[in-house]
Every structure is written in C-alpha cells, then in structure tokens.
C-alpha cells in the first residue's frame, strides 16, 4: 500500500510530528485538568456558580476551532509563539468536559456518605480528598478521556497557524491533492486518539471505587 510506504519512507518526520502532536495534547490536557478540576470542585460545593461557569465553558466549546486560533493570534503574549497559542486554545476546548464531569462526579457522591463523614468530624479538606474525590475519580477521568480525544482531533488544526503536529501532513496533503500525505497525518492521529482513549479508560477502571 502506498500510504504505508509513504509513512515508512518518511518515518522520522512522522515520528517527529507525532511527538509534537503529543506535546500539544499532553500540555493542554494537563493545563485543563489543573484549571478544570478545581473549578469543577468549586462549583459542586457552591451551586450558585455552576450555571455561569458551565455556560462559559459551553460557549467556548461552540467556537469553531479554526476561528478560535484566528481570534487568539493578535493577543499579545499568546500570539508570539504559535505553539503557545495552540496549547492555550486546546486547553480552552478541553475545559468543558473536565469541569462538567468533575462537577457531576462530586455531586453524584451519596449525600449520606458526605453527611456521615462531616458528622464524624472530618474537615472539609479531609472530606474532599478521602471521600469525594476518590468516589468521583472515575467520572472525572471519563471527562479527561473525552477531552483528550477531542484535543487530538482539534490539534490537527493547530498546523494552520504553524504550531506543528500531524496537521502538517494533512494540510500539506490537501494543498498537494495527495491522499497519501493526508493519511500520513490522519492515521497516526487516529491511532493516537485510540491509544489515549484506551489508556485513560484503563486508568479509569483501575481507580474505580468498588
């Protein structure tokens, strides 16, 4: 098959772009977790704020990715380096599933369990780390899983602003009207998404409370 011969012939570039892709997805997912999980916890404990926060994350999600990259280009510090900008935009996209699932997961913990814990004299922090988070972890991780899969797809667009990644092949192939080149980007991206999906899914099952 032509496609595989092409990938083999260009294997070092495929590898390099895959790693670039992985870096974009990895950094943005970690950032989104660092912001989204605490935010999800906060709105689960203060339901007053859940509507505005979830609505904002929702709106961000509806902006077409190409447009979002474009909008962010003139932003001072962000626009200076395309990779920085791409990670920022990917983080924004990954926020919604992570915030929403953290919120849902924490709210889903049996109120009797939380009340028993509080009544026994657990501090709010002990309740969070010993009871709420362990019981919500699989729901939170399934949000991370959705976020990662979305990010792998959206990150291909990052090549449009020169941030690299497997989108390079896709855009190049489109310009050259050469399916082999498009697939050389698309296939590794699909594999990446599947592997990430499987990996986080495995972690999710491992950490699932009994």
């Amino acid at each position, binding site marked *: 098959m032509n496609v595989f011969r092409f990938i083999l012939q260009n294997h070092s570039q495929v590898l390099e772009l895959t790693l670039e892709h992985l870096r974009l997805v990895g950094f943005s997912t970690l950032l989104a977790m660092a912001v989204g999980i605490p935010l999800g916890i906060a709105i689960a404990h203060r339901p007053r704020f859940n509507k505005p926060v979830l609505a904002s994350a929702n709106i961000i999600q509806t902006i077409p990715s190409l447009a979002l990259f474009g909008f962010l280009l003139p932003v001072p510090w962000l626009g200076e380096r395309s990779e920085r900008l791409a990670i920022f935009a990917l983080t924004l996209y990954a926020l919604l599933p992570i915030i929403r699932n953290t919120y849902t997961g924490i709210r889903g913990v*049996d109120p009797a*369990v939380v009340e*028993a*814990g509080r*009544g026994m*004299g657990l501090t709010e922090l*002990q309740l969070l780390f*010993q009871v709420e988070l362990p019981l919500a972890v699989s729901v939170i991780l399934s949000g991370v899983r959705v976020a990662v899969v979305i990010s792998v797809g959206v990150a291909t667009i990052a090549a449009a602003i020169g941030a690299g990644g497997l989108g390079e092949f896709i855009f190049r192939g489109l310009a050259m009207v050469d399916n082999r080149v498009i697939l050389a980007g698309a296939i590794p991206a699909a594999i990446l998404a599947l592997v990430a999906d499987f990996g986080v899914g495995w972690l999710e099952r491992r950490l699932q409370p*009994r």
Partner: protein
Amino acid sequence: MEPAAAIPVIEFRDVSYRVAGTQVLSGFNLQVESGETLVLLGRSGSGKTTSLKLVNRLLSPTSGDVLVNGVSNGEGDVIRLRRSIGYVIQDVGLFPHFTVERNIGLVPKIEGWPANRIRARVQELLQTVGLAADFASRYPHQLSGGQRQRVGVARALAADPEILLMDEPFGALDPLTRDELQREFLALQQRLHKTVVFVTHDLREALRLGSRIALMEAGQLVTVLSPREFLESSDPLASAYVRAFGEGLESSANRGTS
C-alpha cells in the same frame, strides 16, 4: 438510674431553628442526662432530626444555645466536638471505597492512633456489634443491611465517644433484623452507658429502647415521659400515638434495665 445532680450532658436552651422562612424548631428546651437513652419521638417534619444535628453542629441554632457538658457547642472547635460524638444515620453512610476496617478506623486514624492500636480497636468493636473478625476486610457492598448498620454503630463508637446520636438507625431494616439490632442495642447500652439521643417515629421502638421519651410535634416539645408514663399519659398526642400503635404495647415498654 439515679438522678444526676451534675450538669446534663446535653442541654437545649430556648433553641429555635429557622431555615428559608420555615420555623423548624421553636422554644426548644430539653436536658439529656448522663447514661440515659433519650428518644425523640415524632412524625416526619416535627424537628427530631434537626434537634439531633444541632447537637453535633451540623446545624447552628437561629437563637438559643445547645450545651454539651455545660459549654455552648458553638464555642470552640467544631471538628473536635464532632469527633467526641458518635453519629449514626438511617442511610448508614459507610464509605463505599473503604473496607469495613478503614470505615471503623477512620476517626482513630485521623486522630493519629498507631496502626496496631487501630487494628485492635476495630477487632474489639466488630465483636461488640456481633460481627466476625473476618468482616474487617470486606467492602460495604458485600454486606447486608443489618450488617452495614452494625458497622455504622461500630464506626460511631470507634473513638469511644461519650455521646451517641442515632437518627432512625434501624428504620430501613426488615422487622426481624430490626428486632435483633434493638435487642443488641439494649445489651450494648447496659454495658457501655453512653448518653444516647435516639430519633424515631416508631412508638414501639421508643418504648423499648428509651429511658425517657421526648414527644415532638411541629417543631415543639410536647412532653417528656418515661415509657411507663407514656402508656398511661392523658396527653392527647401521646394517647393518640398509643391508640395508633394499638394492642400489645405494654410488653414493649422499657422497664428500666438496671
């Protein structure tokens, strides 16, 4: 039980509790003496559970004071207060991701007990509530309802609190298991002499377990009677309860176990 001349273990002083425009509790005065089992009896919404949660400060009174051992429970560290009070609820609220051992040993653990002392304490408590030692390694979902509630009681007793608050602990159990647990509760209480506040809407349970029964209605305390007095009471609400529960109550009444 001799009348305690000392200060009551728990005292409600003119307590009112209001939430979202609803008066849940008003002008509530009650003293709970050391070593007694005081039953709060009343229908749903009469303020029983609210009164209980005011003791371990899961709720704070709108006005008035709740004193524990003579000190207002609003002063001082609420976490300390709660760790010195055992709390058992109808839904048990066992931590589903912890083994029975970790459930029972949680408060001792965060109190910094050494591991071997916790393990010994867990074994001792399992025995106290009538569960075999090998239950320690099981998870809550592997237990029956009655076993879960036994673990709930063991967990509440873990740090050897002086006070035990029990909110319809046997309400969700089948009649046979309930009977069994009530019997064991009596035996346990005879040994441990905790100060217990027990919430129920079941008169039979109240008569059987209580040394005194505090009858509540619409957020107010109607009367406080011993089980004997309750059966003979001319109070319209008390006699309505007796009528509603019908025949055979005589045999339920707690005749004082000591």
